């Protein structure tokens, strides 16, 4: 197993500390695909591109570079499952590779944090990009032991795609990468109004301005539920948290009655690759606790 089948697994904050089932599922998926995930010991917050970048962009870059350095020492590309972490790490990595002045400034600060020097030797990869493009909807078929029947509303989230000049994952106005992947594992990706709007969590809004955050989410939920999906499919634990706690907030404060399960791409992919449903971990989530996947048999392939 060579370097190209190994990743430095960047956990972040919300996945390990709120949704460990996503971590479990991601580890399962990568193992089944023949990839090894290396632990990034002593990694810290990415740091969050909303609140922490807003406070101090230089410190934000330094703290992000520290995380990247940990992966550089392992000599492996970073795999992240979160749009926020992707936003920070991918952007800082790219910026530091291209900008010598910033690199020197950051390396000067990094010394104070320990034995770190940013070299610019690795890439940062998002699980949505990895599954949707690197593996892809065709190749993934070889690994599926079952598919799932269902209608889903796909939520891309903002930082997975934008800014496009930095991310270079897919179009920001008409992306297909996740819809194609969802269809490949048996789902029907249903179109809905204003599909690409923000979940309303980013930029520190969720923490400080709940009312505004919930107006943005409320509109999103209205448009999603209008097409009656079985669940929401996302690629970001922060959007995930927003959809989960947000539905609860809207139910309590705005008289709605939402109970849509929220599923991360790792979770549904793991299930299709044979992971036991209990580890998909829906029972730990706030919404759709009783939801069960409808498995569909796939033809065997040699």
């Amino acid at each position, binding site marked *: 197993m060579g370097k190209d089948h190994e990743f430095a697994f960047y956990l972040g*904050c919300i996945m390990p500390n709120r949704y460990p089932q996503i971590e479990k599922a991601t580890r399962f998926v990568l193992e089944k695909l023949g990839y090894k995930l290396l632990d990034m010991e002593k990694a810290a917050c990415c740091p969050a591109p909303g609140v922490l970048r807003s*406070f101090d962009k230089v410190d934000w870059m330094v703290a992000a570079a520290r995380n990247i350095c940990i992966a550089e020492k392992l000599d492996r590309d970073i795999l992240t499952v979160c749009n926020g972490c992707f936003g920070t790490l991918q952007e800082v990595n790219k910026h530091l590779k291209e900008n010598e002045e910033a690199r020197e400034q950051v390396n000067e600060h990094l010394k104070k944090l320990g034995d770190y020097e940013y070299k610019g030797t690795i890439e940062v990869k998002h699980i949505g990009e990895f599954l949707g493009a690197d593996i892809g909807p065709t190749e993934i078929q070889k690994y599926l032991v079952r598919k799932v029947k269902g209608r889903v509303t796909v939520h891309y989230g903002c930082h997975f795609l934008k800014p496009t000049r930095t991310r270079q994952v897919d179009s920001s106005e008409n992306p297909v990468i996740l819809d194609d992947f969802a269809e490949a594992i048996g789902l029907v990706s249903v179109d809905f109004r204003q599909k690409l709007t923000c979940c*309303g969590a980013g*930029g520190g809004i969720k923490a400080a301005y709940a009312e505004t955050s919930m107006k943005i989410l409320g509109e999103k939920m209205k448009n999603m539920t209008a097409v009656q999906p079985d669940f929401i499919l996302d690629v970001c634990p922060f959007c995930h948290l927003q959809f989960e706690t947000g539905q609860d907030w809207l139910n309590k404060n705005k008289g709605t009655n939402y109970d849509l399960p929220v599923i991360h791409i790792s979770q549904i992919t793991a299930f299709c690759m044979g992971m036991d449903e209990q580890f998909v971990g829906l029972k730990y989530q706030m919404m759709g606790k009783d939801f069960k996947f409808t498995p569909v048999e796939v033809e065997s392939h040699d």
Partner: protein
Amino acid sequence: MNETKTIKLENIHEEFPDSERKFRVLADFTPEFFADIERRTNILSCIQCGTCTASCESGRWTALKTRLIIRRLIFGDLTVLEDPDIWLCTTCYNCYERCPRDVRPTDVIIELRNYASKLGNMHPVHRKVVDFLKVTGHAVPINAQIRQQRKELGLDELPPTLYRYKDEPDSEMDKYAKELFNLADANEKVQEKLQDKNKIRGCN
């Protein structure tokens, strides 16, 4: 004696005194401030077309008008640094993608927030995130329930992040906490303004 001193949440502000601040009041700003922002964005290219405001996810529900923020900035109106509206951006990057002049409005707002923070114009809830970061290395720390859940799922009870190693002699937690995000003291007057946002004009 070289004991690891663990930083506690209660005394975090005593640990990091408010010193060496370059900016204390709006009058401390020189024209370099505008040049600094222009270096990383393109505010002077703005033609006030309003594509940013029209694309704004937050502005649809709030008083945030990105075009106006940039106009005020170009005209040298430093009160934008006290305006709660700059904290309503969700950083969705719609304006950034669509701006015909590549002004990079999202980045402009982040720059303004950086300078606002130097003045202590921060929402207390946001500040709290920094406290979490300094104590745990995480913006969202783990709790007892999740530790249990991790065990049930067959994962390590604590993920191998900085927090797991915080009590080890060579822990980097202290350096991390001391060197990063040492923020100015809160500006009480502006804090009040920031917190009133929802009640007064945050949602229209």
